[in-house]
């Protein structure tokens, strides 16, 4: 029943990124390699400023990398020599959200197909309406984003990404700053959507429980310069629900990841690391 993803393989090979603000060479990501299988839910955790977002922005095509190569289904999308370009095959859901405040929910969701010229405005709206209904979000199409709760906004944003039928979903701490209950509901929404469409997901978070609850694999990144320190496989089946949160396996995974991240967090804290955007 769950669709099997045939596309959306991300290969990150020896990627490094040096920021050069005012001539101070800051190595944000150091020789990072990750292979993500089509349809895999991959979660990155790590201390603030470890280069997680840098990596996500490179995959999204928002900025270049200094060396290495990122490819999508074998095709290089980000490597020195190719100027990075975002594309509708890689959809980003931003930290703090980026719905267009001047557009209604329906127009926000229909935005992608309209600007891509993939559909007339009317068709795009019909499609958006159908998708919203499918995801249990009907009845809010005429609202503006600021009339919705943060949890609802984030769900709309996920719908806005999914309508483009991307190969990859890139989520940058999408549920940050939500209260625990809202967060739980938003996570289950994402899991349901994932079970339905099975895209490759690249998900960044600080929240270790969230990482285990959502991911197939959790990658722990070191403090800057960011490298992959440890990989943990999460063997829960899907569909998942909140009940796994109280299982023994969940708790033991949590303590493993906690150990790995804590070391890095302490190092970052001692280095006085400031959070990078």
């Amino acid at each position, binding site marked *: 029943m769950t669709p099997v993803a045939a596309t959306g393989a991300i290969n990150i090979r020896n990627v490094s990124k040096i920021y050069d603000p005012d001539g101070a060479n800051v190595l944000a990501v150091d020789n990072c390699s990750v292979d993500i299988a089509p349809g895999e839910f991959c979660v990155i955790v790590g201390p603030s400023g470890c280069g997680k977002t840098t990596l996500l922005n490179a995959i*999204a*095509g928002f900025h270049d990398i200094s060396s290495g190569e990122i490819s999508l289904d074998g095709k290089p999308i980000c490597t020195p020599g190719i100027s990075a370009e*975002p594309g509708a095959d890689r959809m*980003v859901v*931003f930290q703090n959200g*980026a719905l*267009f405040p001047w557009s209604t929910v329906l127009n926000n969701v229909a935005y992608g197909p309209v*600007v891509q010229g993939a559909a007339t405005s009317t068709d795009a709206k019909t499609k958006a309406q159908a998708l919203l209904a499918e995801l249990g979000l009907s009845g809010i199409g005429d609202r503006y*984003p600021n009339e919705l709760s943060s949890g609802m906004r984030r769900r709309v944003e996920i719908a806005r990404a999914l309508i*483009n039928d991307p190969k990859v979903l890139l989520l940058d701490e999408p549920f940050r700053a939500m209260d625990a209950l809202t967060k739980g509901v938003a996570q289950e929404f994402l899991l349901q959507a994932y079970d339905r469409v099975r895209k490759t997901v690249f998900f960044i978070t600080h929240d270790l429980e969230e990482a285990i609850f959502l991911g197939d694999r959790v990658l722990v990144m070191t403090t800057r310069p960011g490298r992959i320190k440890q990989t943990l496989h999460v063997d829960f089946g899907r569909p998942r629900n909140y009940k796994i949160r109280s299982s023994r396996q969940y708790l033991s995974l949590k303590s493993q990841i906690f150990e790995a991240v804590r070391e890095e967090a302490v190092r970052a804290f001692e280095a006085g690391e400031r959070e990078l955007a």
Partner: protein
Amino acid sequence: MATAAFAKSSTTLSLRRGLVSVLGLLVFWEIGRRLHFPFLSAVPAPTEVLASLDKIVGNSKFWNDWISSFSRVLSGFALAQLIGIPVGLLMAMSRTLRYLWFPPLEILRPIPPLAWVPTSIIFWPTTELSIIFVIFLGAFFTVVLTVLGGARAIDERLIRAARSFGSKPRDIFWRIVLPATMPSIITGMAVGMGVTWEVVVAAEMIAGKSGLGYFTWASYVGGNYPQIIVGMASIGIAGYLSSGAIRLLGKRATPWQRRI
């Protein structure tokens, strides 16, 4: 339903209170004149103004003064928007233009619009054009700087999101930059409209042969004091109507900003 009822009662409440405070002011003024309060004793009382009113409003010249002031304000204001909004947007989007245009703007901006009156009269062939030009200047700088500020403050994530959806530069401009700047455009209009009424009245007093500013000044020169008050009140009402129109336009143009 409950909220609609509440909204209605709060509108009537604000209307009622507004009327009470305006009437209170008029009564205070009337009493002040009759009891010879300092300053107020020299000003014609509301009843005297009212008595002179039928002669004034019956005169078509008075209404022509309304029309000429309004048409000057609207021309200067519209020009300031037509040129100022694109200039602000262009400066926001191009660093080169920003660096080029910002210094002269900042040097010209502190010059009060009225200081432009002499050169304006010399430069433009008719007084009418020179007054409109001065009004234009009064609103122009405010509009440019407000729009520039608004367009520069657009959240980078919105642009990134739009790009990843496959927006072409044209889409970024029309679908993102313009709506994102709309609240600032409206603010620029509101502030600009206030300035234009200040400027038109003063310019008409200096150089005009018609208009509400001219009417007020001519009443003073002619010694018709109640008529001065009618002129002032007319300017006040005209300004109030203009800002009301901008507020209405603003509500229409930025529906997502309604209060919740």
